[in-house]
């Protein structure tokens, strides 16, 4: 019998498998496929203060072993999320979620986070400073001072653990992670998508309406792993590893790099049962690698 439980900022999760924001909507629709309470947790669709339709279509393209997405934070806005989405979710989910909070100014980030902080179903705040597909957002993820400022503003008003989700589209991700830690972050989640594009040979034009998007999926796993490794060795707060996780072995590898938990993103878009498969497959993979307690492998590499 292996122990898949992990501890994150004092909260114990049954396992480290968390469905990533933007790939699990607000969760309840997936509950008709399997019991989503099997998951360690999930991060809800990135939510802004106002409703957003997002970017023009096409806003999805394919890469080798990955998907390039340019959704642009479509979401119904914080009021509708709290009034409509969360009540639906509560009927099928009794654990805590990560509330993925987005914004276009430090004030908006802190306001969305503050509203989420009041909700019982929210266990963690994930401050998404790194959406690659909205104008103006990248400054928060690429400037350490701004990343720290957003983190501070959120921490001033919120009580629940704050994870800041970082972008890989920077020169030195460690400096951003450290700035967030200085700003009071309780944890770091990384990475968001990698800037990417495709061109249609027939039309000779970019596939995506806004030309560029963010690549995720197994193609980015080794890059994400490297960044998780670098950040986990540079900060003393927990790190959630995100990027291309597809198998239980990927989960173990990401944890050995220093992640306390993982988020599964792009694979939710091709295999709606991936969360369940990872949770159920994890104990067997642990046994195969002689791991009795999952926490014991965090950062061993």
């Amino acid at each position: 019998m292996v122990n898949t439980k992990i501890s994150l900022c004092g909260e114990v999760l049954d396992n480290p498998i968390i469905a990533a924001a933007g790939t699990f909507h607000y969760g309840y629709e997936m509950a008709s496929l399997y019991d989503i309470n099997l998951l360690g947790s999930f991060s809800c669709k990135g939510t802004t203060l106002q409703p957003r339709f997002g970017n023009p279509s096409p806003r999805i393209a394919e890469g080798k072993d990955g998907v390039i997405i340019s959704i642009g934070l479509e979401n119904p806005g914080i009021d509708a999320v709290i009034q409509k989405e969360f009540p639906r979710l509560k009927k099928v989910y009794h654990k805590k979620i990560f509330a993925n909070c987005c914004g276009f100014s430090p004030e908006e980030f802190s306001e969305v986070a503050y509203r989420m902080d009041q909700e019982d179903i929210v266990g963690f705040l994930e401050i998404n400073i790194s959406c690659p597909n909205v104008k103006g957002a990248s400054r928060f993820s690429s400037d350490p001072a701004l990343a720290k400022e957003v983190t501070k503003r959120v921490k001033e008003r919120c009580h629940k653990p704050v994870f800041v989700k970082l972008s890989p589209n920077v020169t030195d991700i460690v400096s951003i992670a450290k700035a967030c830690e200085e700003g009071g972050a309780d944890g770091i989640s990384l990475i968001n998508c990698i800037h990417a594009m495709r061109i249609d040979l027939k039309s000779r034009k970019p596939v995506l309406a806004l030309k560029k998007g963010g690549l995720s999926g197994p193609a980015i796993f080794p890059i994400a792993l490297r960044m998780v490794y670098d950040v986990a060795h540079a900060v003393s707060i927990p790190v959630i590893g995100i990027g291309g996780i597809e198998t239980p072995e990927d989960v173990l590898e990401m944890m050995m790099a220093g992640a306390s938990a993982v988020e599964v993103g792009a694979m939710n878009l091709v295999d709606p049962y991936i969360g369940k498969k990872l949770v159920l497959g994890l104990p067997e993979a642990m046994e195969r690698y002689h791991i009795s307690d999952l926490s014991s492998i965090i950062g061993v590499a």
Partner: protein
Amino acid sequence: MKEETCVILENVRLSENTYRMKLSQQEENFPRPGMFFALRLPSFFLRRPFSLWQHDESSFSFVYKVVGKGTEAMSHMSKGDALDVLLGLGNGYCLAKSGDYPLLIGGGSGVGVMYDLARYLLQEGKHPQIAVGFNRKEEVYAEKEFRSLNLPFRLFTVDGSAGEKGFPTLALSSSHSYLYACGPLSLLKAIAETDLTPGQFSLECHMGCGYGCCMGCTIKTKLGPRRVCKDGPVFEKENLLW
């Protein structure tokens, strides 16, 4: 929605770039006409969504056109190959509003769905009329099956190489109680602009996941943003924005 490993029972070329594939299924997964499925192809990350042509308790078939690398790879697959398929996706058509004389219009890949829908409507005691359109003779499929239904049926090709010359919108002059349509957006738009009869349109679009998670296929409607894959693909004609 259900995930199943389906075996290719048939993969035949109908014309230059049009193929028909028949896959196994363990039980009926398409209770309403207009639902769809999504294949996962080896070496491709995203699934490919397709609409049905025919289906029964142990199999289903569909027609596809080679338009890119994914469909190109499909055209080389053989009988006996297995594919990971998500079955029973989307909402499908609602039959209750059809009236007694609904007109069914299909274009290109959307033609097959109309055959399925016509059979459902017949079971309900309705009198569907059918109009289908293709680019040219070589792309025509399902004609024999449609004709065997013994319903008012008109076949159009853009170049006139089979049936009547022109688009199936020419059939809109006949009297009908309701409209059902599936096909390219340009066809649906032409129908909406020509005919005020209420109806339901099934939309084609590029999808990410096919089950509502990625928000890749959202469209604006009069009711707000809607996901084609999960809230559709069938929408009330009057709720669509053109």
